[in-house]
């Protein structure tokens, strides 16, 4: 029997400097550890901070050709601009995760939606808004199971600079906790 084809398109979007490409690389590395077929692409402006920025990760069990995400199974938006630009290409059964520190207006009705102020939470509980990307990524992974959590942890350890690993592992733990609590809130 042929196993069913599995292909998930994930877009992580926001503004330059929010660590979205870093999050994309970590997610892709985690998927490689899970033995999936992966591509990770990105789009950003010429400036190093500000401007629209996004990272796409496609995770599949069969060979595919086009490397950019066109219709998303999972969309993470860390800014209103990113939400406005990309939400229309979220699949009907797709999952939206939005940082409502910045995303104030959500018009989508049919998808699974999670809203949390990741940037605020990071600034308050981790004393730095820098790991908001990992916080959101950890939340995303626990909610969607798109990669295994042990692979995600390994990918963070191997990719993040040593002196920031502890901070990001704290963000990872907190992100998982937020995901569990989010469910119990409902």
């Amino acid at each position, binding site marked *: 029997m042929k*196993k069913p084809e*599995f292909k998930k398109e994930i877009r992580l979007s926001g503004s330059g400097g929010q660590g979205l490409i870093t999050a994309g*690389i970590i997610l*892709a*590395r985690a*998927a*490689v550890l*899970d*033995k*999936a*077929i*992966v*591509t*990770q*692409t*990105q*789009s*950003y*402006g*010429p400036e190093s901070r500000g401007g629209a920025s996004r990272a796409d990760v496609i*995770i*599949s*069990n069969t060979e*595919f*050709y*086009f*490397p*950019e995400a*066109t219709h998303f199974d999972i969309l993470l938006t860390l800014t209103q601009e990113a939400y406005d630009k990309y939400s229309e290409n979220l699949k009907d059964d797709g999952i939206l995760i939005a940082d409502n520190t910045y995303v104030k207006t959500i018009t989508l009705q049919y998808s699974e939606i999670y809203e949390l102020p990741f940037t605020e939470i990071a600034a308050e509980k981790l004393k730095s808004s820098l790991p908001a990307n990992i916080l959101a990524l950890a939340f995303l992974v626990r909610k969607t*199971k*798109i*990669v*295994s959590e042990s692979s995600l942890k390994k990918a963070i350890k191997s990719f993040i600079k040593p002196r920031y690993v502890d901070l990001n592992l704290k963000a990872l733990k907190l992100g998982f906790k937020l995901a569990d609590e989010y469910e119990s809130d409902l």
Partner: protein
Amino acid sequence: MAKKEIKKNHQEMTLMQGNEAIARGALTAGLNFYAGYPITPSTEIAEILSAELPKRGGVFIQMEDEIAGISAVIGASLAGAKAMTATSGPGFSLMLEGIGFAKMAETPCVVVNVMRGGPSTGLPTSPSQSDIMQSRWGNHGDAPAIVLYPNSVKESFELTIRAINLAEKYRTCVVLLTDEVLAHMREMVELPDFKNIRIIDRIKPTIPPEWYRHYDENPKYRTPLASYGEGYRFHVTGLAHDLYGFPTNKADEIEIMMKRLRKKITHHIKDLVQIESFRMEDATTAIFAAGITSRAAKAAVKLARKSGKRVGLLRPLTIWPFPDEAVRKLLGSKKTVIVPELNQGQLSLEVKRVLGGIWNYENRKTRKIIEVRKTNGELITPVEILNAIKEVK
């Protein structure tokens, strides 16, 4: 989730960026000199080589600009190094002076051009395929070009090795084109067994120095090449030159030189031209696409086939010399040809040249060439190509 069903020796797979694959490929091919000036989206190539070359006894120099970069590369090659530089459109424009010189002086070197949106400084962080013609016709004067264009991270590794091999083999400047998306994307790569990779070095003269002629005639147009410092004396100039490399105005000597520049490419077309043919056997519609766009095309072929449309893809890995024979035979037998590209119609112009000639009219079946063009900094998507396929009756 995706598990276990892929490949057994999966642990050898690594997630690699396109630019990193180019740097790794160059090192595998024996690169020992890099000079250049960093420019988005090619910078990672320079970054990696600046760290790796010194460890292996090689040289990395960041020059003051791209003209100096290509000049240093040519100088290093004349002294025996396998030399390369990398840039993007704006820097490639500056390097054309040196590229023409390297072709004229028959000095092996490789220039990587990671294409971004243009003209001018254009779109530094967006993909484009607008240097296809520039890589062929950019330098002044009439000399053929060897230009390769991969479509994956793995192929970026392989074609970099091939570019350096061909430069050494044919004593010329070889251009490797890629684009911003290909250069920055990460995908899984299983690097080939290094024992099975063929590395070509330049042919060294075996005759005594006093008999040596730097541009000697050779039946296969592959003249042995001495390096400075090996005891062989020769002269190098951008002026038309005789067999020793000294300037000449004599028509018969110029004739020999120009013939060699041309023939060393045209005599070896089979060695130089590489194509990929995908689902072409029973196709009635063919897509002709290169580089990153060919991946959208391949996805479109898959989608079209699902709805019963017989579509195939012909992809050139060698852009120049243009694969005339494959285009004539494989595309000329299809009713409709679709050419998607991230420019204003550079590849399609060549397809029309090959298919459109009166000499071919009787034999070819192609009745329609559909162009899909995009120059807004975004990729052509599979659906956009699919829409073009749907137009076909």
